[in-house]
């Protein structure tokens, strides 16, 4: 008799501890759902400019304004998506275009007509003006190069 009572007592205890666990899990689940519902719009709100920039970076082709007017042995800075880019008109009438973001630490390099090279003043990195190859200083990689098409007085730069 007393044994019976004991077993029924312990199953009741088991059921109530099960109920307790269930309630705990349910409460945590509902809490997480709430946190997600509140957190999602806040995240999208804060990340809004990041998303906008990412969609602007999808650009594959840019017409360089007044590009055709660029004299020989000179460079013109323009915007490719959200980033700075550089168009160079060489002495031999060939053209090059690069993403003007130094591969070392992200400074914007400049074309030096005297030395006919691309130079980054931040840490004295040097790139070849025709190929973009990193030839001196700390840059670990060449500058990403674009394709340049010159026709009908228009200069169109596109991803290689």
């Amino acid at each position: 008799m007393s044994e019976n009572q004991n077993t029924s007592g312990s199953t009741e205890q088991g059921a109530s501890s099960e109920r307790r666990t269930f309630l705990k899990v349910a409460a945590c689940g509902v809490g997480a759902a709430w946190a997600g519902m509140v957190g999602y719009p806040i995240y999208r709100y804060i990340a809004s400019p990041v998303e906008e920039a990412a969609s602007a970076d999808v650009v594959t082709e840019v017409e360089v304004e007044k590009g055709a007017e660029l004299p020989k042995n000179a460079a013109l800075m323009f915007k490719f998506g959200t980033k700075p880019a550089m168009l160079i008109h060489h002495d031999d009438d060939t053209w090059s275009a690069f993403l003007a973001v130094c591969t070392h630490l992200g400074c914007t390099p400049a074309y030096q007509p005297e030395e006919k090279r691309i130079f980054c003043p931040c840490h004295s990195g040097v790139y070849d003006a025709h190929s973009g190859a990193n030839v001196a200083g700390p840059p670990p990689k060449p500058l990403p190069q674009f394709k340049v098409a010159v026709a009908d007085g228009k200069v169109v730069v596109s991803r290689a």
Partner: protein
Amino acid sequence: MPESLGPKVYSWLDERLGLSPILELALKKRVPDHKHSFWYYWGGITLFFFIVMCFTGVLLLLYYRPGDGAYESVQQINTQIKFGWLIRSIHSWSANLMVAAAFVHMFSTFFMKAYRAPREFLWWSGFGLLSLAMVFGFSGYLLPMDDLAYFATKVGLSIPAVMPVVGPWIADLVRGGPDITAYTISRFFALHVVILPALFIPLLLLHLGLVQQHGMSIPESEQQKPEAERKSIPFFPNFVFKDLAVWLVALNVLALLAVAFPWPLGPAADPLAPAPADIHPEWYFMSSFQILKAFGGWFPGVVGEFLGIAFFNAGVVLWALVPLFDPNTKSGQWGRRVTWFGFVVLAVLIVTTIWGYAVLPAVAH
């Protein structure tokens, strides 16, 4: 609770931060439980909306630009930034709900006579908090610089301007000139996000600290019962969980209102355009707006304006000083008179507010 943290970590923190007395207090604290307990939650509801406003206010700061481009930046928040309309709508709605909850809290403490000794400073700090909240509302209303914001601020600032001698001088200083310009926006912005929070938060901490010091006030009907018959519930966890449940309801109401009725943005303010026909202040200024208008109608000229302002300010001063002329339970006859005064104030506020909305011309926006 602390055991689960790991007794070593807890005792390390306790030695340095003195957690035990705080924890003991929180576990020992009890909250009275009686048929008027419902009203105890309204201070907490007000606090909840204030916290929501702090968070959404910081989020709005990410994109809002005071000055000349203010309208364009709010337009950008409303149309371009993901969920920007929602953040702005929640900020505006919780501002209104906070003032509403504060009014409920104030009148419930008034009628339960919770301002009596030793809680006078709770009443006064609460009075200061509500006053600051209304200045928060007034200054925040201008920031989007749409047409309603522009004209409501214009009218609002013409009220201190009728004060003799110093009035126009004060109004000019607040506006940064005789007209509402980008200077006014920058001034209101500084007020709204720096000066007011710097005043509000310490006063709020004082208010909350005093509640801990004196405990919840109990109404007269409870005070008459012998101590053994008074019921109470533990602060932790019972009251805290109830409070959290109420906050969840408040959050739901806020979310529903903000999504179903997104806060509008009118056309950009144009100083040369005539005021919109239905120009009116926020609802919590409607009563004072209508009292001024009514007195202006009864007594034409400056006399009417002066009498209206005097009537309203006399009411506000009497209201603030109520703990002084109804100091304790022994003030029987006075106690009943003060209760009647409360009913009259409530009636005047409600009637003039409804009156104010009733006489607005219907304009489709």
